[in-house]
């Protein structure tokens, strides 16, 4: 009966993120957020393992006040318990520091066999948390899992890498990171969502996990949308009569651009 800790992140919803047209900087204030797509699959996988084998599922996240939303979502999906490391500056930590904080929080927990997390967050895509956690916890890591089985005290993991599909085994405790391909995460029912709003996560402060706020190891000096100038010549051919003319103009244009044979 494995005890599983799932690390989740409230990510910026990049499909809704807007950029300032003049400065080309992201408009982060009030940008919609949601649980990372790969993180959702980590929660789903943990719940499926619990469904098959028993055990427990704890969700863990760090950040400012806004992270309560992501914890409610995890409760609605069905996790047993939530741990929240909060502090005013925790929202903008670099990966290296986040990994330290998550490790300290996991070490506060009574026991774990498996730590699951999304292979990458849906906004930063650093791919660092899983292997970083494993290094600090002193356990093995298998990343980019698309299938996960537990046999006795061993994990059997299938993962897609650049050169092929690998089936790997390792003994628990271990860290596994999940990709989009591992499962289709459940959508919680309205009842589950309402029920989750009553659940309270355990809050850990930096003092409780014996971490002092430190200078960031990585500083973001700027974020911007690269300028790609496109011509945006649009032909409306929703009426079939316009199609012929539009095709002729398009082919003329492509010949002038010298991009077709």
């Amino acid at each position: 009966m494995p005890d599983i800790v799932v690390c989740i992140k409230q990510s910026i919803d990049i499909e809704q993120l807007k950029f300032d047209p003049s400065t080309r900087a992201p408009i982060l204030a009030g940008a919609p957020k949601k649980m990372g797509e790969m993180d959702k699959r980590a929660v789903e996988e943990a719940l499926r393992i619990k469904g098959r084998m028993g055990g427990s599922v704890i969700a863990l996240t760090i950040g400012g006040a806004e992270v309560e939303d992501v914890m409610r979502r995890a409760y609605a999906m069905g996790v047993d318990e939530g741990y929240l490391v909060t502090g005013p500056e925790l929202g903008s930590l670099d990966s290296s520091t986040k990994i330290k904080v998550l490790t300290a929080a996991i070490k506060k927990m009574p026991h774990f066999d498996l730590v699951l997390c999304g292979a990458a967050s849906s906004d930063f895509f650093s791919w660092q948390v899983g292997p970083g956690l494993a290094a600090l916890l002193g356990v093995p890591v298998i990343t980019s899992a698309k299938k996960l089985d537990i046999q006795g005290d061993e994990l059997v993991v299938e993962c897609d890498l650049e050169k092929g599909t690998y089936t790997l085994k390792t003994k628990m405790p271990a860290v596994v990171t999940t990709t989009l391909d591992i499962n289709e995460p459940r959508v919680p029912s309205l009842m589950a969502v309402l029920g989750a709003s009553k659940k309270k996560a355990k809050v850990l402060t930096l003092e409780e996990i014996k971490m002092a706020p430190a200078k960031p190891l990585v500083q973001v000096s700027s974020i911007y949308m690269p300028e790609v100038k496109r011509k945006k010549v649009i032909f409306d051919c929703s009426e079939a009569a316009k199609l012929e003319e539009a095709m002729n103009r398009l082919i003329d244009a492509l010949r002038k651009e010298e991009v077709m044979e």
Partner: protein
Amino acid sequence: MRYVRKKSWNKGMNKNILIFSEDLGLLPELISGAREVASKLGGEVLAAVIGSKVEGETKEISKYGIKVLVVDNAALEPFDAGRYGEVLQQLTVNYSAELIMIGATTRGRDVAASLAAKLGIGCVTEVFRIDLEPEMTFYRSMYATAIAKEIITSSPKVIAVKPKTWARPETREGGKIEKVNVKVEPSRIVQVSVKPKEVIAEKIEDAEVAVIGGKGVEKKEDLEILRHLATALGGKGGKVGVTRPLAADYKWMSEWVGMSGVAIKPKLYVGVGISGQPQHIVGIRDSKIVVVINKDPKAPLFEVADYGIVGNLYEVLPLLTEKCKK
């Protein structure tokens, strides 16, 4: 055989550049990048080749005129990111590395994160450009389509660099090979099986003209309609690809175009029935000319189009193909 001595860490004195790639094919381009950085830092470029029975591979690397550190140890088979991180940790300290540059394959990123965590230093992954002035700045993608410029405040620093960031260097004289003995516990991973990726005859990243299908394409057989257009527009250089849902979910192809798949930069990109998720757009951003065909005028892909056709792809494509042939 040289044994690594424990050495006290001279803060601020590190200036060498250590490069590593689990995929040895990426090492030459890392050598090019490391030399650029070394011209500023003034240190030496050292390439680490780590694994079991890897000694044979080292000559190939040393012919680029650099010192290769070989850590050949049966304990390092199969690949275990944590163990590789421990090896690089020792090399970083003992060879006074200021910057550790790692090829950003999946496993490379894992090693980078593991190394950074063990040393308690800053790490930036997915780096595709480095500025050296006024201070060392790493460029990487952020929010899928945007770019972040980042500075690592720690010394040393770890980065994972995207393939094709630099060109391969010319070979030159002066290469050295140094065997290094490192203390490392055996790998904790057991490799049960590996199924190599099938070699794809039609490599979409090599296309001159790339016609890419999205969810607007109703069935797999209809990709033939795209193929006719690709051939009419680009001849042999005209190729067909798909977006992530069509490959990962419907299994119509084994690879897809986009952030998690293949990034392409053809002369001409034609997006057919693609709404335009940010993750797709980032994979086609460097195309010379972008043509978008979609019946939904609100499809976000039109925002990045040079030429757009609002219309039904099943009417547009056959007619366009026909006219191209004339």
